[in-house]
Structures are given as C-alpha cells and as structure tokens.
C-alpha cells in the first residue's frame, strides 16, 4: 500500500477535494465519491441569522467517511485567518487547517508574509497547519521552519485551470521539502494532476477543476486515476530524456541485410 501521512493521519488517497461551486449538493456527493478522496476541505462562514434555511453542508458530507479540513479561504490578514482557524477547530473538532491568507483579489495569490506569521501563531496553538503558498522554494522553506505540517504550493492561480506553470520550481521544492508537498490550485484537467504527481508531489488538492467541469462526477474519476497514474509513474522512475531516437527492436537479423 502506497500510503501518505500528514502529521498523525495516514491516507490512501492522494487526492484532496473541495466543496465549492457545485451545481447541487447531490452532484457534489457523487463527485466526492467518484474522486476516492478521503480528505475534503470546507470553508468557514457566518451563519445567516436572518435567513436560516436548515440545510447545512454537513448534511451532505459523511464525516465517518471523509476527514474534514476547514480552510481560511477568503481571509486577507494573518489575524482574520487565525480567528477563522480557531472557529473552524471548534466547529469541526479537529485541529487541522488549510491556511490561506490571500494577498491580491485578482490573482488570489497568497500574502506570504502574513501566511508565515499566521503559521507560526497556529503551530504554537497546536494546529496542524497546511498552508497554501506560491511556488517559491524560499517561502516553502520558511513555512516548514515555522512548523507547517505540509506545504501546498500552487500550480497556477486558484480556479484558473492553467495547469502547472513552473515545473522547475516544483522540482526544486520537491528536492528540499522535508514535509509532504501538496500541489494546491491551478489544475485544469487530468494531465495537470498527473504531472504534479510525476514531479513528486505527495498529493494534489483541487476544487474548480472537478466542480466546474461539464460532468463533475466523470472528471472526479478522471482525477482519481490521474493522481494514481502520476504517482505510479513517479515511483517507477521514468527514462531519461534524449535528443535522438533509440530503437526498441533488435538491430540483428533484419531481412535483406
């Protein structure tokens, strides 16, 4: 079994999925099932006090089957993110958090300075911190030093579907990372997820690529297979790249020579 461990928890699936942007809860449930994911990330938001429809996201997620990872999506300062993480811990009864501190509205790139600061605070409070960061090896190292349980560099901007933009940076991060490396954001289609895994990522986290697909349930399955395929390819040790051909048939015994 090719298991994957973060902090004190072990997973067999290397695909982590979100819960946003689905056209209906039923489609989300089917997509989660098809993805084979064991960890699902959820956002923390104010309860609507004036209009409390009784439906809760938790009505649709079987928490005996999935591990809930509260996130701080939408937070723009370390202070906001820390407050949201603390609330998420109380609402979810787990000390894990996918830490996001956004620095720019248009690109949704993280504010790494605030991110490192929030990581330090939350690690001191015994959180298992999984920070969403840029694909910058120096920032990733700072996050590790701050006590992050994993590092989650983006492949491309959130929701962009552009795929892995800086393959070399991810290779460098892979080389130096001492904690699990999760590519978070930017995946558009199955080959992007496979590439992330072939580069040596321990897991891939995605939301829009599945939820926004025309057939989210089929795409969820495609992503499951891609992550598995990419992982196997990484473990198998690919052949070196060469400029010229090398025949795979014997050169002896050719007819007419």
């Amino acid at each position, binding site marked *: 079994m090719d298991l994957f461990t973060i902090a004190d928890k072990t997973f067999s699936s290397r695909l982590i999925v979100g*819960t946003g942007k689905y056209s209906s809860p039923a489609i989300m449930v089917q997509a989660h099932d098809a993805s084979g994911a064991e960890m699902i990330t959820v956002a923390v938001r104010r309860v609507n006090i004036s209009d409390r429809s009784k439906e809760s*996201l938790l009505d649709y997620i079987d928490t005996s089957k999935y591990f*809930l990872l509260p996130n701080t*999506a*939408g*937070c723009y300062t370390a202070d906001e993110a820390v407050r949201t993480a603390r*609330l998420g811990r109380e609402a979810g009864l787990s000390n894990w958090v996918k830490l996001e501190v956004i620095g720019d509205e248009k690109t*949704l790139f993280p504010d790494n300075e605030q991110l490192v600061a929030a990581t330090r605070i939350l690690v001191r409070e015994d959180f298992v911190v999984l920070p969403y960061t840029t694909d910058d090896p120096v920032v990733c190292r700072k996050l590790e030093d701050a006590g992050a349980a994993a590092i989650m560099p983006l492949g491309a901007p*959130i929701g962009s579907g552009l795929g892995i933009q800086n393959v070399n940076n991810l290779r460098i991060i892979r080389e130096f990372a001492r904690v699990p490396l999760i590519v978070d954001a930017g995946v558009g289609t199955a080959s992007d997820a496979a590439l992330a895994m072939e580069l040596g990522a321990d897991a891939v986290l995605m939301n829009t690529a599945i939820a926004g697909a025309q057939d989210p349930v089929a795409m969820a399955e495609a992503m499951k297979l891609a992550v598995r395929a990419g992982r196997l390819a990484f473990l198998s040790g690919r052949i070196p790249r060469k400029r010229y051909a090398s025949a795979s048939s014997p050169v002896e015994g050719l007819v007419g020579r």
Partner: protein
Amino acid sequence: MNGDTHEVSGPLTVSELLAQLQIDARRVAVEHNLVVLKREAYDRTTVREGDEVEIVNFVGGGLGIRDWGLGIRD
C-alpha cells in the same frame, strides 16, 4: 452579531442565544468578544449589551472564495 446589530431579550447565555435563534449548537462555532468559545463554555458565557458575537458554520468552498469573510474589514 455577525457584523449586524441584533436585539435580544436581556442578558442571556450563548446556549440560550443559539436556542432562541434556532441554531443547532453542534453545527456551529461561536466567537464572543474575539474569543472562540469551547462548546462546554456556552452555558456559562453570558452575552450582554454591546458584546460582539460571531456564529459560523461550514459552507462549500475550496480555495480563495471571497464572498463573505469574517467581517473584520467591514
């Protein structure tokens, strides 16, 4: 409460507040004057006039959503 003024009938505990709002305490988390409360504290924490209360739950979201934050920048 959650960024808006909300009138309640006199000082009451967080448990009573949630009950009055018909909110299932098991599904939410509560922050009282910037302190996140443990569930065990709901019965002994009193909400008074002028207090700030945030009540949150989980919603669908993956990454980077900015529809309604915690309102710290409100």
